[in-house]
């Protein structure tokens, strides 16, 4: 936790606070989009394609239409022209749905049945018969017919090159050359991908869980040719996001069209299996890593080449080499990434999109190199630690990586580790300790907010923010209370509605930095107004004083020497009702019109790896104990310790949950989850939440989290680096490294399962 009293006048920032929306969440009153009351809705049920590539020759709809209560069946023949095709997560063309007869992937939406009841819509959907002209699909890497595309540097990704990595690798005294793979994964938030559309004349209201209120609003407006003011999105709570609700998907516009056609609100609650193909996912990746080092452990060469799957029309990619090239001091760096196009749905953001799949190979390779050199894996990181970005020599805004390693190692008991693989046992269990570096770039975007304050000391902040589980409501209340000198309970926070001032989508761990900095700016504007009025007043204790010397604290305007004027007096001087400000914040390095662009639904982002002044990352170290049963090869992870340094922590209670949840995602990523693909038909096989394994309560043991104090005055005014993603990043490699330590078996492909160790 940051301990910077000067930057937290009210003392709330950095103090644990229970969630202000906690009561709503434990009483069933928190309203997720599908919970919004809707008058007389019709129900939609999706028909999805049974082939992965080809065309729709025709549909037999008679039996479906004959089901009592059926109102409409949307398909390419009757509504194909009514929407413009959607854009993918990267803002570029992606797969289509009802716009044409084309089938791009298995499980693509091919019809939408609308009926009076959910039961009737479902029955009718199963009676829709689709006549396909099927072609042989290409499922994934190494399938015949896939097309590889080497990527070039663009606005969001770069492929660092420095020195001569190939020559340095060839000449290096110690070499590590290995290939790694990460699997297809689906977010599987517990909430389904619901959409409810309600028309009121020309105005469309969309109730849909989203991580991007204004992004969804703008996307649907564009697709339907509507004025932005006529589209409103509402998502007061989202039942988990993890990136899966970050980009607009095809379904929304069709439900809007359906509602317009049947002249009733239309509600869609897709099935769990449909969520695997109507939304995005984390694509499978392959990696080739070459590390060259001196015998001392100092790195001489790093080469990281990656391959990622995407759909046919989209080149969406995550290109985590932007990160891996910046982890360790190294004079020679080469990176390259290719997208491999297959007959699949377009992937998208999933928790730590670039870093989870790309740090896995790097951090395994570092562990392998350490073993090869006979150097402790922590010490190998220390030898190659750096305070300057190895790619371009910029300083890190702050980098506390080794402090994280040291804190976590002490708590974990790393000193008890016998470095010899397979040497530690407990009865029938082989015991392994593993660790890895975690990191995530510190991103911040422009944001806007409206803030009011009454003489009674009640504040209200409004912004189109997103509560996806991060504790966003509480975060806002804490910052406003802190800056206005109020109690957290005095702050009312309204979010989740695009009728409110826009903020960026909640992704890439930017939310806390973007929204708290605009909130703090709004508070400062109110303080300044009150202070100015107080010093300019003919009467009053601060008449003629310097307004900069007046602070808001304990429901009063406080001057030098502790002189106090009650808030009621100070605010009443300006208004007997409330003062209100509307504030826009454009972080350093972004275009001055970045806030204006937000009102068009266009998000720009200052990315930590690509700033001009500094390189900004949060860092962490993750440790895990793995136990592998000698006879059954069952793998358990009974305890883990993760230490993170991420600048200012606003609410340690919610931050702890974020870190811990992220670490559990890491264990899941290492040992549990993978979407299995039937390569013959390019179809996801385990498309339900029982066969797609995620940890249950009994899978998770002790999950310690350490907050390593860090002050960062350069990353942004409040010193916030963001914490939503970093918790997952290092854990998958830590587990793989622990499995090696337990068994001597190096598994370079996730997830690691019993069959890999037999």
């Amino acid at each position, binding site marked *: 936790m940051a301990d910077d009293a000067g930057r937290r006048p009210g003392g709330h920032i950095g103090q644990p606070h229970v969630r202000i929306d906690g009561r709503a969440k434990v009483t069933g009153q928190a309203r997720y989009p599908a919970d919004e009351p809707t008058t007389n809705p019709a129900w939609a049920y999706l028909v999805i394609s049974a082939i992965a590539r080809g065309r729709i020759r025709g549909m037999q709809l008679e039996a479906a239409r004959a089901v009592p209560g059926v109102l409409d069946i949307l398909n390419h023949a009757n509504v194909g022209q009514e929407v413009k095709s959607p854009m993918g997560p990267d803002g570029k063309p992606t797969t289509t749905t009802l716009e044409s007869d084309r089938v791009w992937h298995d499980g693509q939406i091919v019809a939408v049945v609308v009926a009076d009841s959910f*039961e009737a819509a479902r029955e009718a959907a199963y009676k829709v018969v689709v006549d396909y002209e099927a072609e042989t699909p290409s499922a994934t890497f190494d399938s015949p017919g896939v097309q590889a595309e080497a990527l070039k540097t663009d606005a969001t990704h770069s492929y660092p090159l420095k020195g001569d990595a190939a020559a340095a690798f060839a000449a290096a005294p110690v070499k590590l050359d290995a290939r790694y793979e990460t699997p297809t994964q689906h977010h599987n938030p517990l909430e389904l991908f619901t959409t409810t559309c309600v028309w009121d004349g020309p105005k469309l209201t969309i109730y849909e869980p989203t991580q991007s209120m204004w992004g969804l609003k703008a996307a649907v407006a564009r697709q339907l040719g509507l004025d932005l003011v006529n589209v409103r999105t509402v998502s007061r709570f989202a039942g988990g996001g993890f990136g899966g609700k970050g980009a607009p998907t095809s379904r929304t516009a069709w439900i809007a069209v359906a509602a317009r056609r049947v002249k009733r609100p239309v509600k869609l609650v897709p099935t769990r299996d449909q969520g695997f193909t109507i939304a995005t996912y984390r694509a499978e990746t392959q990696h080739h890593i070459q590390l060259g080092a001196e015998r001392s452990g100092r790195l001489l060469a790093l080469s990281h080449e990656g391959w990622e799957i995407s759909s046919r029309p989209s080149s969406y990619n995550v290109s985590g080499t932007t990160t891996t090239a910046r982890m360790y001091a190294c004079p020679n760096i080469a990176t390259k990434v290719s997208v491999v196009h297959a007959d699949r749905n377009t992937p998208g953001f999933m928790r730590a999109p670039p870093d989870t799949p790309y740090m896995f190979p790097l951090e395994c390779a570092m562990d392998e190199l350490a073993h090869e050199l006979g150097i402790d894996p922590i010490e190998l990181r220390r030898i190659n630690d750096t305070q300057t970005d190895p790619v371009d020599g910029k300083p890190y805004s702050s980098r506390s990586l080794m402090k994280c390693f040291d804190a976590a190692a002490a708590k974990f008991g790393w000193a008890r580790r016998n470095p010899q693989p397979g040497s530690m046992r407990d009865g029938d269990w082989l015991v392994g300790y593993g660790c890895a570096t975690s990191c995530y770039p510190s991103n911040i975007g422009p944001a806007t907010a409206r803030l009011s304050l009454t003489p009674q000391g009640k504040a209200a902040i409004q912004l189109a923010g997103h509560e996806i589980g991060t504790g966003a409501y509480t975060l806002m209340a804490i910052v406003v209370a802190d800056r206005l000198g109020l109690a957290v309970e005095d702050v009312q926070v309204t979010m989740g509605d695009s009728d409110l001032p826009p903020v960026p989508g909640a992704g890439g761990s930017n939310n806390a930095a973007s929204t708290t900095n605009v909130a703090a700016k709004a508070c400062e504007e109110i303080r300044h107004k009150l202070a100015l009025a107080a010093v300019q007043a003919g009467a009053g204790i601060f008449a003629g004083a310097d307004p900069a010397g007046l602070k808001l604290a304990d429901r009063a305007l406080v001057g030098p020497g502790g002189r106090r004027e009650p808030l009621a007096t100070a605010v009443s001087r300006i208004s007997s009702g409330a003062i209100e400000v509307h504030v826009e914040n454009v972080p350093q390095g972004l275009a001055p019109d970045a806030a204006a662009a937000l009102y068009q639904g266009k998000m720009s982002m200052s990315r930590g790896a690509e700033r001009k002044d500094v390189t900004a990352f949060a860092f962490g170290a993750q440790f895990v104990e793995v136990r592998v049963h000698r006879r059954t090869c069952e793998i358990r992870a009974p305890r883990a310790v993760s230490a993170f340094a991420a600048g200012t922590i606003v609410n340690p209670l919610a931050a702890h949950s974020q870190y811990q949840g992220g670490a*559990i995602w890491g264990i899941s990523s290492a040992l549990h989850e993978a979407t299995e693909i039937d390569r013959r038909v390019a179809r996801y096989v385990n498309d339900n939440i029982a066969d797609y394994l995620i940890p249950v309560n009994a899978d998770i043991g002790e999950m310690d989290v350490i907050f390593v104090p860090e002050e960062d005055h350069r990353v942004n005014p409040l010193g916030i680096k963001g914490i939503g993603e970093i918790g997952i990043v290092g854990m998958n490699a830590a587990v793989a490294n622990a499995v090696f330590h337990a068994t001597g078996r190096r598994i370079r492909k996730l997830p690691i399962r019993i069959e890999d160790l037999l």
Partner: protein
Amino acid sequence: MELTLNINGRDHRLSLDPRTTLLDALRDHIGLTGSKKGCDQGQCGACTVHLEGRRVLACLTLAATVQGRPVTTVEGLAHGEALHPMQAAFITHDAFQCGYCTPGQLMSAVACVHEGHARNDDAIREYMSGNLCRCGAYPKIVAAIRDAAPQMAPKTGRV
């Protein structure tokens, strides 16, 4: 079909398609949206409610089969403004993030205690493993149950 459901001590007269699940009846016909649909096939536990005091999955229960049998949902846990000790413990321990699985976790947690399965952390983990939490709040759910269990009044009548 016409039927009467007793939810949280109150009778609701409804006209439903016989295929309607208890979960859809609660959410879409009675307006009690606390119980959540996470899979609609009995895999996730987000729809867990109490039927005659036992935990059941509302998505796998046809509404027509619970006529005349008392159902308690998350909306029925608190007594007026006073939260159930389990609800209070979930808030104190931050035993949720997005909150979507929370109604089901709470109903399972209360049942877990009444069943006598909250004896120790391992037992809690085992008997709470029918309720998935994608945010990863499991350690805090265990801590909340451990805390709330002694504060809960012994259950009378059927488990």
